[in-house]
């Protein structure tokens, strides 16, 4: 069936082995005028090498300050069906397992009320419903909550939809119940998720181990990363099996042929702290020097496992570049046990938010505020003692804000006595 707009450039994107979003949209376009116009608009963008969307106005569902991104096209004259093309962010179930039953229902709702196009998933983690009109927002919301038990995710100066890695659901290394932690945060802070109260957005992400499969350290204002405090568990026999070529190194990441693992070169020499030794029969790890980087475990998953005294390292401040340049999260709490009801963690979160809300400027992320006021102020606010694990290196500039409380007489000076000792 011929579509309304010719799309010679987009058609080029139907070629090649990777699944084509163009083919997919075209399929929908046959019965969805919104999709037809979207293709036309996109083709025009390809010609102009410029996008054709305007700033979104404030649209949303009643009582929520987030969850919908308003979007209007700048050529409604040509593409009336995408004149309005708002996005709804549906809060995904933690780590994105779905029953087909739920998914199909979601599809039905969306086909009825919107474009029928989605993003599975948005970068933050939401299940994104891409393109609808203002009048459809409330009906969709109603049906989501009533029929699916689903709710909207975050946008604006809110807590954003938290997300975690697959964790204990299907990974042997997880030191955390990532799903449960994410679910707990999401539920406990529904108000913060839906109603803007912060200086800017705030993101949580949780990875079960330092491999950080959800990229928490790069993109969450508060990154929760699983770790352990005791020893790596070693199965010496399995180590020997790797060395002997009976097991495939790195779980097959580099190929599946059985080959002898060169344990010295592939493991010991790549250990960042060089805290391992292989004497030809046994592997020794000096765990007190291990920085739990995961490399050895990654390479020998059947021989090595994280310890059992598990918990999280809490790091704060990651964000994209706007304004001061991108930041990674920094260690704030080297180790915290993470067990329900997560009280210690909640207390930390609330102290952190209080400080941020009190001191943060408009559009200032937590990481930028810490930069501006100093890590010291943040630690004071969250009542955490300074620890060398928070830094890569102590300061190298001599510009120290000494605390007057530590100085005899504080900042008081006796100018007269001074000039008695030192004539001007």
């Amino acid at each position: 069936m011929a579509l309304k707009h010719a799309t010679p450039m987009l058609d080029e994107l139907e070629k090649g082995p990777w699944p084509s979003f163009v083919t997919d949209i075209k399929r929908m376009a046959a019965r969805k005028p919104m999709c037809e116009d979207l293709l036309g608009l996109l083709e025009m963008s390809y010609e102009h090498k410029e996008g054709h969307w305007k700033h979104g106005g404030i649209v949303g569902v009643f009582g929520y300050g987030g969850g919908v991104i308003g979007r209007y096209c700048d050529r409604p004259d040509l593409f009336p069906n995408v004149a309005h093309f708002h996005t709804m962010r549906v809060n995904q179930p933690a780590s994105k397992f779905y029953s087909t039953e739920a998914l199909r229902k979601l599809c039905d709702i969306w086909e009825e009320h919107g474009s029928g196009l989605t993003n599975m998933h948005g970068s933050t983690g939401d299940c994104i419903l891409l393109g609808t009109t203002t009048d459809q927002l409330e009906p969709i919301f109603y049906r989501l909550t009533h029929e699916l038990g689903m709710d909207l995710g975050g946008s604006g100066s809110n807590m954003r939809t938290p997300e975690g890695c697959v964790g204990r659901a299907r990974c042997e290394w997880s030191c955390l119940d990532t799903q449960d932690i994410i679910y707990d945060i999401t539920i406990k802070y529904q108000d913060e998720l839906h109603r803007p109260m912060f200086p800017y957005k705030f993101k949580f992400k949780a990875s079960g181990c330092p491999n950080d499969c959800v990229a928490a350290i790069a993109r969450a204002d508060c990154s929760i990363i699983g770790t352990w405090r005791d020893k790596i568990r070693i199965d010496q026999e399995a180590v020997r099996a790797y060395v002997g070529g009976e097991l495939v190194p790195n779980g097959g990441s580099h190929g599946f042929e059985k080959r002898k693992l060169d344990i010295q070169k592939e493991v010991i020499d790549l250990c960042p702290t060089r805290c391992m030794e292989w004497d030809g029969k046994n592997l020794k790890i000096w765990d007190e020097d291990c920085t739990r980087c995961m490399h050895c475990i990654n390479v020998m998953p059947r021989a090595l496992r994280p310890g059992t005294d598990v918990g999280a390292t809490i790091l704060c401040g990651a964000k994209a570049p706007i304004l001061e340049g991108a930041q990674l999260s920094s260690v704030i709490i080297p180790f915290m046990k993470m067990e329900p009801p997560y009280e210690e963690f909640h207390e930390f979160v609330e102290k952190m938010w209080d400080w941020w809300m009190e001191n943060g400027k408009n559009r200032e992320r937590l990481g930028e505020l810490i930069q501006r006021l100093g890590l010291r102020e943040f630690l004071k606010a969250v009542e955490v003692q300074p620890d060398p694990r928070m830094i890569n290196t102590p300061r190298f500039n001599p510009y120290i804000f000494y605390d007057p409380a530590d100085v005899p007489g504080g900042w008081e000076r006796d100018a007269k006595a001074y000039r008695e000792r030192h004539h001007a």
Partner: protein
Amino acid sequence: MPFDPSDIMKDRITDIGPPKYDKFFPPIIKENYGKWKYHEILEPGVLVHVSETGAEVYTVRVGAARLLSVDLIREICDIADKHCGGYVRWTTRNNIEFMVDDKSKLKPLMDDLRSRGNWFPIGGTGASVTNVVHTQGWVHCHTPAIDASGIVKAVMDELFEYFGSHKLPAQVRISLACCLNMCGAVHCSDIAILGVHRKPPIIEHERVQNVCEIPLVIAACPTAAIKPKKVGDYKSVEINENRCMFCGNCYTMCPALPLADGEGDGIALWVGGKVSNSRVPPKFSKLAVPYIPNEPPRWPTTVQTIKKMLETYASDAKRYERIGEWIERIGWEKFFEKTGIEFRHEHIDDYRLAMTTWRTTTQFKF
């Protein structure tokens, strides 16, 4: 009680959050939650996880465009219903994972997937190029300098052989963000594709005072390039173009300052970032190519430059070495030499932390 547009508060449900995760766990996952003992990749895209109970779950990972129609999702559901007891999941990089609880179910599942044209390429595990994390581009956002889905498609077509194989020295994570806001958080990717503007904003003096909060606009500029200015009768702003580095933050605050420009905009490529703490700490990606023009529909220069970088890496790096680790071992001077990429003044940082990137040692390679 269906939705009643005349009384939206009726039966209103709010703040329920997402369904509890385990509601959607397949039984094998629920039963073995926290009990997994080890895993193995059986072939690219196919994982087995073995539980302490002896149970096994087989996962088939397939690549997908992130932009999916409900039709395609329904097809995914069909497959999941047929083979996986009605469950499916997505990964953090937008791949789809089909799981079965018995080895015997694996082949039928894979055969089915392979029978459906090229919709469900199997791969993305281990030392591969997995799916490209990306953003909206011209499909939905108002600030992009480039498209997203189209570039990703063109790149993945070209690198397809690396998706379904384990031939690389280590995993390679490619991401795309269509403007400096970097929604994909591409700043820590092995290879990042970033939309950049290169012309200062147009100032629509007649509109500024109507559609923008001038003080917020001024505060938005990281380099303090924007000052208030009266133009005729209009309260507007002026921009010191010499201080503009095209970040677009002013446009975010003010629609009367459009930056997009077909001739000016394009792509910057970044390399060597990583997220995992494995071996070396997480790293930011660094500038590789300052600018490549937008070349729709298939962005050949971008695609070929990425391929060249990837293959230079593939042939030169040691096993386990991520791109950033490889470059740090050989040195940036060798990276530019080996890839043939020109080193230009844009590579030299001149922002806040610039000093920390300069070479304060005589150690370098000729």
